[in-house]
């Protein structure tokens, strides 16, 4: 696999795509998840081009479960935008989202994550986490979580952070002989680890080496 942006085939199968199997920028993907159904999606965006990822998910049947994971690595002057809408319309559904990304170079990343819990969707569990590391002063990451809850018996949480590599941890590793670059790579890979699919480890590693 090259350094091009990559969308998990599981997503690609369900969304409009061009001849190369790539979802066109700006195309909206939507999914409807019914009673007892499970949907798992993983988004992997590697350095190479700008992307808009716009996903809307409706949980319409009781007990539906959705798990979204996302990993993005951006460099150069790339623009990567995520817009995720998780709409809980039925009771007893669970959604989990974890998106971790790194912005280097002069790239710009935005993450808009909206969770709507309808009045009837009691016993909803909805979780969303979005964490970003910016590698340079020119890189920019913005995260905009939004919770709209119209039911009263729900468990919802979101966490959003934008930060830099942990200088103290880098320094600690260096004092033990790990070169600065390797220490950065270790830290970036560990940050991405929870969202890295097993079969993408190698390409993520290559991309991290390219960005650092």
């Amino acid at each position, binding site marked *: 696999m090259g350094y091009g942006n990559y969308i998990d085939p599981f997503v690609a199968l369900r969304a409009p795509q061009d001849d190369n199997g790539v979802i066109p920028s700006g195309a909206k993907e939507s999914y409807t998840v019914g009673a007892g159904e499970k949907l798992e999606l993983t988004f992997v965006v590697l350095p190479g081009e700008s992307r808009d990822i716009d996903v809307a998910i409706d949980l319409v049947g009781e007990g539906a479960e959705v798990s979204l994971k996302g990993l993005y690595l951006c460099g150069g002057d790339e623009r990567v935008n995520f817009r995720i809408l998780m709409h809980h319309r039925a009771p007893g559904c669970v959604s989990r989202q974890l998106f971790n990304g790194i912005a280097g170079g002069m790239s710009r990343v935005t993450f808009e994550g909206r969770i709507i819990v309808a009045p009837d969707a009691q016993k909803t569990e909805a979780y969303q986490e979005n964490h970003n590391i910016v590698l340079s002063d020119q890189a920019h990451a913005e995260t905009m979580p939004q919770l709209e809850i119209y039911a009263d018996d729900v468990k919802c949480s979101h966490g959003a952070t934008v930060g830099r590599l942990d200088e*103290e941890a880098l320094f600690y*590793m260096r004092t033990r002989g*790990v070169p600065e670059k390797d220490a950065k790579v*270790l830290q970036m890979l560990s940050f991405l680890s929870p969202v890295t699919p097993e079969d993408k480890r190698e390409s993520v590693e290559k991309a991290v080496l390219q960005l650092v």
Partner: protein
Amino acid sequence: MDKLLEIHNLHARIGDKEILKGIDLTLNRGEIHAVMGPNGAGKSTLNAVLTGRPDYEVTEGTILYDGKDLLAMSPEERSWAGLFLSFQYPVEIPGVTITAFMKAAVQARRKAAGLPEMKTPEFLKLLKEKMAFVQMKPEFAKREVNVGFSGGEKKRNEIFQMAMLDPTLSILDETDSGLDVDALKIVADGVNALRSPEKSAIIITHYQKLLEYVHPDVVHVLKDGRIVHTGGHEVIEAIEKDGFDQF
């Protein structure tokens, strides 16, 4: 005598504040030195300068390590040259296991020395051996570095790393008074076990307790940014008896 570390007229500051005001200290190969001093004497700054912390500025003086200009070396180069600096507050590295961390450290050092990579079975054997040596439970190999560790476990992990890296000169910052007796013993056992004519150590400390377990050859008293007295074991007793004001 074979000089391993020579600090000459070392001045250092953080921001506008001068903290080290001309330190002279010579350590020979095979010796263990203690640097003792009251709070605010400059102990942490001395350790920070030796470690290569970027926020401290050396304004005057030199440090020669094994004949080389230590201040010109990056933190990783210092490590490759055989220096080990234990942290008073070891840092947590979420997501990075002790095994992955030590593998990166050991291989980088071998690379710097022009040696081939250590094979995985050999590395794991070394890891296991050194963990047993510091009485660290084997399951720690898979734990994230220092994450959720107790104070004693962090200390043990420092001494474990010291054993793994087999340094020529260990500098232990034990300035913290919060060390319990168990943690002190871990540190002391680690230092004592590595004692040899080739290995040296500097223990920077406020309290004499640790020095009951590790017997330093030379004791320095650091006060107001200078070494004001150097002697043998009798200095520890004098401090125990009458504190630092006598110097």
